[in-house]
């Protein structure tokens, strides 16, 4: 039941309503709202009970294994939440003077330094509020760099066909055109196609490494040299950084700019869809274009926000204030707990878990997309065979996994591999969970052999069964109305 349907006119959570003084200045008539907004009128207990119960209708890392490829759903340490919630941090106004934020800025400044080092880059900005904004920022900086050199013809961004959809979307947002290049049979980018794509219109290339198919792009230095020779710059999409954290550095591979999804690699919570944070790291030559603000440490040891005036060539401002500071504090706490020895271990054990899970599935007869390759922190299996022989698809497997208490892996991505699942167990899951995943996959296949229709109908044990997505899209019902007007207009 919706909260609105539990309401009763005139009901209030009275302890939450402040008492206005007797004299409230009157707003001029012309500006006044005439109809009350139909917010729910419920008691405090009703609200608490409703949202507590709703929360129980979710999977989450705190309750379930979440092997979602490319999303790095690792444990979000509860200590990080405690840090960001400290009143001195949580209650600070963004326009308060720097004197009131030295503690917070010390954390952010350290985080900037640590991220620069672990990525092999010269400088880090924490301004971007999510990965996509980090990407925007990166491409905008590439364009600003070309423009700064008077090179206005370079408006083409090269993107592998297996790239995340965000990459081309970002390029478009930056006013660029996208040129796709194919992925080879071994999972690496097709070098010949890359060389052919390069030219005087090349602004740059956007790459993930390990790639979206979960393998390490072995010729990355060769690619970097080719792009640089052609006058382009390299953008590193940090979505998969967990695979190589502290073991290989994008800066050393030849990348000029990159973003990190702190809500993936640095374990700030996904929150059911954000907030994230998309730190941007750059080599020396792009540093002047970094967005504002950024924390700097003055000679006297005091911190302050670096503003537009300090950085005339900046691509500008990405958010009203200083980005998602509360998220950054969580990332700071996590990084501090990992420390210099913990960061490379993240990569080592994420890779161990992925390769173990891959070996386990292969041993049970599941088909790998790249059986000759080492998995990075994730890998792709294709259920082509199962779809053909048993009529159960990757979607069916995914939904059936939910009944086993395991969140579905990423489905049908990368798009060029049919009936695929992209599986990323992360380093924080135990051996028992990995084995349970293999067991569940085997059990589902067995169930499909017995009765495919049963698997088509999954899930059965969740609050709802499969939803009518077509109806949702064709007759969009996007808000509740007292009058139950299905068009919502």
């Amino acid at each position: 039941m919706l909260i609105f349907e539990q309401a009763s006119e005139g009901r209030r959570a009275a302890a939450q309503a402040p008492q206005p003084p007797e004299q409230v200045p009157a707003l001029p008539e012309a500006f006044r709202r005439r109809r009350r907004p139909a917010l729910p009128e419920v008691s405090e207990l009703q609200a608490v009970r409703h949202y507590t119960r709703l929360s129980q209708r979710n999977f989450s890392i705190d309750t379930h294994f979440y092997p979602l490829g490319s999303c790095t759903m690792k444990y979000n340490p509860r200590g990080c939440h405690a840090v960001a919630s400290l009143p001195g941090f949580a209650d600070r106004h963004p326009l308060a003077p720097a004197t009131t934020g030295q503690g917070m800025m010390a954390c952010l400044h350290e985080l900037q330094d640590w991220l620069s080092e672990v990525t092999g880059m010269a400088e880090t900005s924490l301004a971007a509020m999510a990965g996509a904004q980090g990407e925007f920022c990166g491409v905008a900086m590439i364009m600003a760099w070309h423009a700064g050199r008077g090179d206005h013809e370079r408006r083409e961004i090269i993107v592998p066909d297996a790239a995340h959809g965000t990459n081309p979307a970002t390029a478009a947002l930056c006013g660029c055109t996208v040129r796709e290049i194919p992925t080879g049979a071994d999972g690496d980018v097709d070098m010949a196609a890359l060389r052919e794509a390069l030219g005087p219109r090349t602004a740059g290339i956007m790459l993930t490494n390990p790639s979206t198919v979960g393998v390490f792009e072995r010729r990355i230095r060769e690619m970097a040299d080719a792009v640089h020779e052609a006058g382009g710059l390299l953008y590193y999409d940090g979505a998969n950084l967990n695979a190589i954290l502290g073991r290989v550095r994008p800066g050393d591979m030849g990348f000029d700019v990159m973003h990190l999804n702190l809500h993936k690699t640095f374990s700030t919570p996904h929150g059911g869809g954000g907030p994230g944070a998309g730190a941007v790291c750059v080599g020396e030559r792009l540093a002047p274009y970094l967005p504002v603000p950024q924390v700097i440490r003055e000679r006297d040891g005091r911190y302050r926000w670096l503003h537009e005036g300090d950085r005339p060539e900046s691509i500008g401002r990405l958010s009203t204030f200083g980005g998602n500071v509360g998220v950054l504090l969580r990332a700071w706490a996590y990084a501090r707990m990992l420390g210099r020895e913990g960061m490379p271990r993240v990569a080592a054990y994420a890779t161990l878990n992925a390769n173990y899970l891959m070996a386990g599935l292969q041993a049970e007869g599941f088909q790998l997309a790249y059986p000759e390759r080492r998995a990075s922190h994730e890998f792709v299996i294709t259920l082509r065979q199962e779809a053909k022989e048993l009529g159960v698809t990757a979607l069916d497997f995914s939904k059936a996994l939910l009944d086993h208490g395991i969140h579905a892996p990423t489905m049908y991505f990368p798009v060029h591999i049919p009936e695929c699942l992209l599986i990323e167990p992360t380093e924080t899951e135990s051996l028992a969970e990995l084995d349970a995943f293999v067991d569940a996959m085997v059990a589902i296949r067995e169930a499909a052999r017995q009765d495919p229709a049963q698997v088509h109908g999954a899930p059965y044990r969740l609050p709802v069964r499969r939803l009518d997505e077509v109806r949702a899209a064709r007759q969009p019902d996007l808000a509740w109305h007292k009058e139950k007007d299905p068009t919502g207009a």
Partner: protein
Amino acid sequence: MPFIPHTEAEVRRMLETIGVRDLEALFDEIPEGLRAPALEQVPPAAPEMAVQRTARRRADQDRQPLCFLGAGCYEHHIPAAVWQIAARGEFYSAYTPYQAEASQGTLQVIYEFQTMLAELTGLPVSNASLYDGATATAEAALMAVRQRRRDAAHRVVVPRTLHPLYRRVLETLLSPQRIAIELLDYDHHRGHLPATALDAIEGDFDALLLPQPNFLGVLEPVDELTHAARARGALVIGVVNPVALARLAPPGEWAEDGADLACGEGQPLGIPMSSGGPGFGFLTCRRSLLRQLPGRLVGRTVDLDGRTGYTLTLQAREQHIRRGRATSNICTNQGLMATAATIHLALLGPDGLERVADCCLAHTQALVEALTDLPGVTEALSGPRFHEAVLRLDRPVAPVLQALEQQGILGGHDLAGDYPELGDTLLVCATEMRDRTDIEHYRSALAGVLEPPA
């Protein structure tokens, strides 16, 4: 090894299953020369106890003064229930609800969120949140531009009374697509746009941004301006404060048939200020603009058994489907903040939100009266206002603010940088949290600063 569950015996067993000698062997596809050096800048691992200790020391160092700052971020009471529930693991550590069956909690919350924001703004369609108020405003402008699909160069008209930082974000996000931003000046005495302001703009334009209340705390003549902009074929985008909407006419009801879009910063709805983020942007629109909307959308539908359920919908707008032709590149939004705002609004209800708005109105009025009672302090603008006001001092503002800070008071936002034409002015704010005692405390501190005891 923090957060890694494996024992040595388990690692050995796993390596055996994989068929490799050691962990290093798993990285054997990576060229030798690329192995990273040891991380020297990063300190050694610290247990949670030590990290908490450092964090507490730093947070204590940042204990916050009594705050009369507004300017886009507002200190409101947040019911304890809001974050005790929003921080529950099932909300906090959940992923974007792609698997609808396993995400009915988040999805229903977002559906309720959409309903609440649609109600508040008076427009029927809301998305599931954007990054913040400034980027939501930029996305709204981009929607208008896409909707108009003109051949001519794109132009968006932006009043100088729009938040200066929003204007800078607009520049960052609009300029790569070569969309021109035309600034509109305001009446420097009244503090809002003249009703005829658009007469100053020649030629066609795509959209007018209309802040209500505006950055200076003053109410804009939105009916007249909406009418004028729509008469010229442009879309109207209301940039609004959600708490003010408890008492102010919503964008959907401006002029004859309303603004086309509404957007703004959701932080006042239950989100700690946290140096400015994370908050969330909201964005609502007419139904005809639905397919231009960026970000997630949750729809209500039914399952195989006919039971009501919720799911992400109209994903064809989004980057993971439409790639380069998506309505935006946004993936992650500010889901947890939207969750908190939904709980917050449910706890307040319409009556509670009105009471908050009324307290804001009354306390700001009381603050203005108390401070302008001092010699050398006057109210700079005569237009009607909500919960912020511009005060003029008889001397430069910055040293006065510094002196107040010494006494534990954040006295307001200095307007010298962005509004030099207003002279020595500052923007002050008093929400329901700043009671009589606080106001009196400010007044007497300011009196001391302006006229130090002989």
